[in-house]
């Protein structure tokens, strides 16, 4: 096999993995054609969480933070172990975020600094490439202490949440807007064309109905900055920031596969450096940085004289004073590594001494059903956004500061936008790290032997409620309450309205023994902006402290039904 064929296979591999990843995120969606089996348990047709389960950073991070490797995360070994032998092939061949950065970086630039001879200089190893190792150390030390922040910068999390909660919803809204604008012009062939295009698009890419996401701009801006930086520095993210790349760099210390440089017939044309992805100095005469190389094979394929060769056990006797041997270890200093680790360890007491954790339970922190306790949750969630993407009711949203800065972009339920469907367990199925533990429908709705899974409790705002404050009949919250017996009960009362007319109203009350916090009442409440009944996290099954009642009565309450 020639080196050009090998490079073509690498390009194909990048396309295949990118498409596969995108497809898996696309399929993290409630499919229309599902039919329930006898148990009434609806599950996704594809194992979509595999997109994140191959992620070694998620595996190492959650392992350090929790001491266990959750379910499918064992798959990450299929990346991590070959890395030990072959180096960071993942970055050059597999990583969909790396591929995206690759493509965007290689669109010819109008910057003089990134063209011709200047590009050779720009592609040489730079000190900023060390930053990613310190970022990794801070995060892994944080994980060891108990707060998992790797997901913020993990490329697979970053891409998954950006596609799922930014790109696809934006595309949906854009497509709808363009279609309705063209249709409004009233030119019939144009309208049919637009509507046809829209149906094709929606058949392949768009969910059943438009989705809306909390703080979408913060997520979108972050993603945009990562992409735009490629136009200033080739693969800035991969070279300088990516903690997964750094982890794989650490594991590349003793690779048996590497670059062999022969300086004898090299004429210093610089083509190798011009096409280099990792910024690892493939040119003879410079020290090759083993931990920076993405094994993309571009340098060897670009070399017109055969001076470069990727091979098993590269010969070291080609080294000379003018062709120095490679740097095998990552280029970080011990002092800074210790400092970064210390900073990471300190992150936990700093964050947990803040006001939004134990001292002050956050009412907005209504976590998805099946979520583990908040401390464990923050040790597991990698912010991949798969739970938000899959939620058929658009109920789950990324936070900004609702659960403190430690919980940025973790999922919460916003019932005004969507409530938690009692028989739905999709978010629990797709979570790759067990921040949301898998539930069966029975475990969620409960039966004679166990209580239902509770995510919070509903509270009536009597100042906004129609029967309470406005002498107007309404029972919508009670109507929607899905528990049986209902957690909302009514008291009939005759009141006088402003014109002196008597009106019979039924005032709602919440029975905290029965309420599961699903939010159907808040969702359905006819008071359109801020609902007159709202859920907060108190009473959630996962917390021992965040409770109201001393004891929950499990037997049906004694009130008469209307």
């Amino acid at each position, binding site marked *: 096999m020639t080196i050009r064929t090998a490079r073509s296979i690498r390009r194909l591999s990048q396309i295949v993995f990118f498409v596969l990843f995108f497809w898996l995120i696309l399929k993290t969606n409630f499919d229309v054609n599902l039919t329930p089996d006898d148990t009434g348990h609806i599950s996704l047709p594809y194992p979509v969480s595999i997109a994140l389960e191959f992620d070694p950073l998620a595996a190492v991070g959650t392992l350090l933070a929790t001491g266990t490797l959750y379910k499918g995360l064992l798959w990450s070994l299929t990346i991590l172990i070959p890395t030990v032998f072959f180096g960071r092939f993942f970055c050059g061949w597999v990583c969909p975020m790396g591929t995206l950065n690759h493509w965007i970086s290689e669109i010819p630039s109008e910057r003089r600094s990134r063209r011709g001879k200047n590009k050779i200089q720009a592609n040489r190893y730079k000190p900023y490439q060390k930053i990613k190792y310190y970022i990794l150390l801070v995060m892994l030390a944080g994980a060891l202490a108990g707060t998992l922040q790797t997901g913020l910068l993990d490329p697979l999390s970053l891409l998954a949440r950006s596609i799922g909660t930014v790109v696809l919803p934006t595309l949906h809204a854009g497509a709808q807007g363009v279609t309705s604008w063209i249709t409004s012009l009233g030119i019939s062939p144009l309208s049919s064309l637009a509507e046809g295009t829209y149906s094709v698009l929606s058949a392949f890419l768009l969910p059943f109905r438009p989705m809306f996401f909390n703080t979408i701009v913060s997520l979108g801006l972050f993603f945009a900055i990562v992409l735009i930086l490629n136009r200033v520095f080739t693969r800035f993210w991969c070279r300088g920031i990516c903690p997964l790349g750094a982890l794989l760099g650490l594991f590349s210390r003793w690779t048996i596969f590497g670059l062999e440089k022969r300086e004898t017939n090299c004429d210093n044309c610089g083509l190798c450096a011009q096409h280099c992805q990792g910024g690892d100095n493939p040119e003879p005469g410079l020290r090759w940085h083993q931990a920076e190389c993405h094994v993309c094979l571009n340098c060897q394929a670009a070399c017109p004289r055969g001076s470069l060769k990727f091979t098993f056990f590269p010969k070291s006797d080609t080294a000379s004073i003018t062709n120095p041997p490679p740097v095998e270890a990552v280029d970080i200093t011990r002092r800074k590594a210790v400092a970064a680790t210390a900073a990471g360890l300190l992150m936990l007491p700093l964050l947990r001494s803040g006001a939004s954790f134990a001292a002050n339970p956050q009412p907005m922190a209504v976590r998805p059903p099946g979520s583990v306790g908040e401390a464990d949750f923050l040790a597991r969630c990698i912010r991949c956004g798969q739970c938000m993407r899959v939620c058929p009711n658009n109920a789950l949203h990324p936070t900004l500061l609702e659960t403190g800065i430690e919980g940025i972009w973790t999922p919460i339920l916003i019932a005004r936008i969507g409530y938690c469907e009692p028989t739905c367990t999709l978010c629990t199925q797709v979570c790759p790290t067990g921040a949301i533990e898998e539930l069966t429908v029975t475990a969620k709705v409960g039966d004679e032997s166990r209580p239902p899974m509770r995510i919070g409790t509903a509270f009536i705002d009597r100042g906004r409620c129609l029967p309470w404050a406005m002498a107007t009949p309404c029972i919508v919250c009670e109507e929607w309450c899905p528990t049986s*017996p209902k957690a909302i009960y009514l008291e009939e009362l005759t009141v006088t309205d402003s014109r002196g007319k008597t009106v019979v109203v*039924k005032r709602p009350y919440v029975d905290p023994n029965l309420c599961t916090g699903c939010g159907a009442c808040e969702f359905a409440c006819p008071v359109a902006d801020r609902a007159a009944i709202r859920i907060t996290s108190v009473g959630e099954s996962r917390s021992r402290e965040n409770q109201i009642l001393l004891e929950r009565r499990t037997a049906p309450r004694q009130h008469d039904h209307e």
Partner: protein
Amino acid sequence: MKRREFLGKTSKAVALAAVTGGTGLLFHNRQVHTRSGIVTQAADFQVEASGDWPQVVLAHNEDPTIALRMSLDGIGGIGRFVMKGEKVTVKPNVAWDRTPEQAANTSPILVGEIVTQCLAAGAARVIVTDVTCHDARRCFARSGIREAAEKAGAEVILPTESDFVDADLKGELLTEWPVLRAVMECDRLINVPIVKQHSLSGCTIGMKNLYGIIGGRRHRLHQQIDQSIVDLARFSKPTLVVVDATRVLLRNGPTGGSLADVATPNTVICATDQVAADARAVEFLDIPVERIGHIRLAEKSGLGTAHYRAAGYKELT
């Protein structure tokens, strides 16, 4: 400055100024684009009353299909309601993500059988649709209605934004609301409700089931629920009402969830008078019809009679 340069520059500047000013004048005080196309016709699909047939026919049988066939034959057979080549819309109650046993939605067996009957009568197209409360895909799947209807040959529509038209309901209370296109643009409408307790309207049977033909923020309707239901029933008059009382939900309606709330009278009612249909069916809930505000109001508004026995009533077992 050369003359050519002067002319070139000033003419471009003047042209740009003219375009800028012209644009301002052209768009000044323009009417903001208004919504167009409010449908004003009513959804009235009734057949002519006939002295040959009773208005309400009730049939009792453990097999829902047989119960339906008996009551349908008793009121004149499907051939009286559906003609060859017609487009029929079937409107069951598929509001909630519940299984058939939980009695929150219409029986899938009945929906399937009605579709079969319509197609056998020569209907060109049968649509089964409902504006659900819970996620439509879930409701249609778990209720078994999607599967049953499609197997019988119907087209199932899970409404999205483009499936509605803005209609003027011309009610005392309800005016402009988005209404299902399938209910506006059809030849026959068959309402197939289930019988359930409801804590504000007393019961959810046929007329209340019409909530499911409109979209928008319909939870506001509860503030004057009786008038809202009557406005809908005046706007939308089905060809036939098929009441599913094979199972009825006695408590914790309209969502239910527990089998302890369900009774099984094994009964199907076919009716051409939607007020009479509800008046008969509410008896399954042990609520006197006088206590149901919307049935009383509907009768008073001349939409039908609550005294179903006088209107022509037959019971088959």
